[in-house]
């Protein structure tokens, strides 16, 4: 199984542990990731707020390189995925747009190389069955709420899962031996950049999600987006202080949880980089496993 790999800018900065864990997990699962050489930024929100063509041309260049290689593109970041998918669909839908974009990027992109969310690749291409057979440190008794965020499974027409009540990450957690906890905030918006630019709007959104996770009885949150991660993890103490709450809710990239279950070293997965201590819970998990083994 081989995919082109598009890490995107966040994964080389704030979300570096997402990149590390993705690569390590892919390797243990026997998935070959070919990082797109000289990839460029997908444009994120800045491009599509500026100019429609620009917003399509930026991702198209990366997709075109993958197409030349005959590979679909696996994309961890939910926002990059959304931009790339939108480009793929628009190019497929309109020959005219395909021509314009090809002229702009000076490369051919026909929509043949598909933008695929990394979660989708793991769950639907590799399959839960294959993943669960490779698990050697099951996330036993770990109660996880899956947080998909507002982009990963949307818009409904393009998504690989139900846009309102997605299940793939929950099923993945189950395959890893953990306990998926159902909750109603799977696809609520975390406020994205509002936490930085307009905290009076952003903070209440984060608060709602953290509170709901806590009330659902979760030990931790699994996510698939570097921006969600910084809002829920980096901002957690700040938001808690504002609302007089102490959540102490570790937040993981789902790839990190996969790495742990596959028996990889948590430190090497980058888990020590989190703001809210996440190593503690992993350690507890391992200790409990140790006790079970000796008993």
């Amino acid at each position, binding site marked *: 199984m081989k995919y082109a790999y598009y890490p995107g800018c966040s994964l080389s900065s704030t979300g570096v542990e997402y990149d590390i864990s993705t690569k390590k997990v892919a390797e243990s699962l026997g998935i070959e990731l070919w990082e797109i050489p000289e990839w460029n930024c997908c444009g994120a929100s800045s491009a599509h707020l500026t100019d429609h063509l620009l917003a399509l041309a930026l991702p198209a260049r990366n997709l075109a390189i993958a197409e030349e290689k005959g590979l679909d593109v696996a994309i961890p970041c939910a926002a990059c995925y959304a931009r790339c998918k939108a480009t793929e669909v628009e190019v497929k839908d309109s020959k005219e747009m395909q021509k314009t974009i090809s002229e702009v990027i000076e490369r051919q992109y026909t929509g043949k190389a598909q933008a695929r969310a990394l979660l989708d690749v793991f769950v639907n291409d590799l399959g839960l069955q294959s993943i669960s057979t490779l698990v050697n440190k099951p996330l036993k008794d770990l109660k996880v709420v899956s947080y998909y965020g507002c982009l990963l499974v949307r818009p409904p027409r393009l998504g690989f899962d139900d846009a309102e*009540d997605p299940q793939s990450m929950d099923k993945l957690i189950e395959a890893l031996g953990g306990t998926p906890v159902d909750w109603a905030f799977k696809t609520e918006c975390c406020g994205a950049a509002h936490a930085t630019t307009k905290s009076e709007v952003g903070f209440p959104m984060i608060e709602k999600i953290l509170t709901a996770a806590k*009330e659902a009885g979760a030990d931790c949150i699994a996510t698939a987006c570097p921006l969600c991660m910084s809002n829920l993890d980096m901002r957690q103490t700040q938001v808690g202080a504002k609302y007089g709450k102490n959540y102490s809710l570790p937040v993981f990239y789902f790839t990190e949880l996969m790495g742990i279950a596959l028996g990889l070293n948590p430190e090497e997965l980058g888990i020590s980089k989190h703001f809210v201590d996440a190593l503690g819970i992993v350690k507890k998990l391992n200790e409990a496993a140790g006790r079970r083994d000796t008993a």
Partner: protein
Amino acid sequence: MKRVGVFVCHCGTNISAAVDCEKVAENAKSFPGVAYSTDYKYMCAEPGQELIKKAIKEQKLDRIVVASCSPRMHEPTFRRCIESGGLNAYLLEMANIREHCSWVHPDDKERATIKATDLVKMAVAKVMQNEALVRSTIPITKRALVIGGGIAGIQAALDIANAGHIVDVVEKEPSIGGRMAQVDKTFPTLDCSACILTPKMVDVANHPNVNLITYSEIEKVEGYVGNFDVTIRKKARSVDLKACTGCGTCIQKCPTKVPSEFEMEMMDRKAIFTPFPQAIPNKPVIDRESCRYFKSGKCGVCQKVCPTNAVDFTQEDELVTERYGAIVAATGFDLFDDSVYGEYGYGKYKDVITGLHFERLLNASGPTMGKIKRPSDGKIPQNVVFIKCVGSRDEAKGKAYCSKTCCMYTAKHATLVREKIKDSNAYVFYMDVRTPGKGYDEFYTRTTDQYGAKYIRGRVSKIYEKGDKLIVWGEDTLLGRPVEIEADMVVLATAMVAKADAAKLAQMVGFSYDQNNFYTEAHPKLAPVETHTAGVFLAGACQGPKDIPESVAQASAAAVKVCGLLSKEEMPTEPIISAVNEAICSGCGMCVPVCPYTAIDLKVIQERVHGKTVSRKIANVNSGLCQGCGACTVACRSAALNLKHFTNEQILAEVDALCL
């Protein structure tokens, strides 16, 4: 020599304003075969028709062209006219110079006149090739079949029976009654559904002309209008209907409980059961899927306790074939599967229910004896949220159409919440409130103004459980504000959809259905109860979402059509049907799957070739089934099939007249 008469109509000024009718009539005189040509203000009116009849006699005309409106409009009129003038009705041709000419080219009289002349020229060329056709007759079996015993089927059956005809009602379920039996009170008058339905159920059951065949399904349909041969599968009831007195002892003693479909699984029934207390026939059936005896060979309690020995485990399905003159499809509707709306949590949260669940919660013989209680814990809900258009008017996840009944039944539900629960709140999320219908808008106004239901214009984005509450997030689009409601129960106004097996039944009987599997009427305005298949009529929600008054009206209309048919001994058949030229038919069978009415099959004929008898296959058109659509003539590679009155030669004559 053929002598054609041409009659050009002005249609008041409808045609003459854009076409020079006198000139067209004048031009026509030079066309080959035309012996007489004239124009008149209103050809279809009495003097116009007299003009034609007189000319036939005086000018010795033997075929007629009328240049006027669409044949859809007046072909029958002029056919009758020339028939009474002594000509065969099919020696008429119409040139449509109104819809096809004056109406579409109102501004260029000169060219419109040229076009009208051309149209007449074509019609003359065709009529020269026309042949006299004779209508034959088929006998009519004086017995009707109604498929489905909901309110629509019941009403249709009663009307047909009261007119003196025999009618069989085939109902799939153990009892007739349909959805109306599940409904508690009916809008807009809030009279109790059972009180108005059960008398009708009893009437239909006791009517000497009605034969109820419950727990049965249609297996096969052959034949055509006047003579449908229908095979019915009477499912094994495991209870002898003649012996059973309906005492119910077996039901009481049966140890097996399963969720009751009728009560929307909010209550149990037994393995031997009647779906509801007023069921008709009020005699039980054994659900063999859940019965212990059928699953493990043990039990048999019902048989032991039955005082009349009516329980019969050895019963088998029975197939009966009966001949009918007409069929009414009245198979009703199903509910959309709300679980596709993950955001509402239907199927996940016990207190998110459909309107039909709510009807049962309102009903005195329902799971809560008519007290509105939550399915989860039996508590009386204080805040009830209603969401309209769930699965309706939503192309992304549901159906594009409006389900038509839900605005009204939601208003009814909201009223009843406010009436039955003290200090309660009824919140209704809506996109629009659609209440056309007699007394309907007044009812809705009372719901808000008198009963104080709170209507919020906007959609719900999410429902989630918090403790024992359901938190409902939505938007009030009039105030432009998000809304959050702590609800105790949420009721979804679920879309009405076609029955799961609707398409299968339509294919079996041979009529058409739309993209949503609702049955298609022959004309949306002018033939709303007919289908494209002669002798098959529609009633009720199987044709599209409908409430009870509309279903009943349509049922009575369908009954009139059936009675019209059954009141005759025989009926004329349209002679415009396909004919096989046996000499050149190669028997390839290409035409067989092409025919939408399954009118063609292959038959074997014997021929003498060079002194030897050989047999070969050829196509055979069933004149009762053929509707003259002509599809087969296009499929036939050896041109052996020809549609009478539209033969290849006739069409080519028209083309030649225009182009040569």
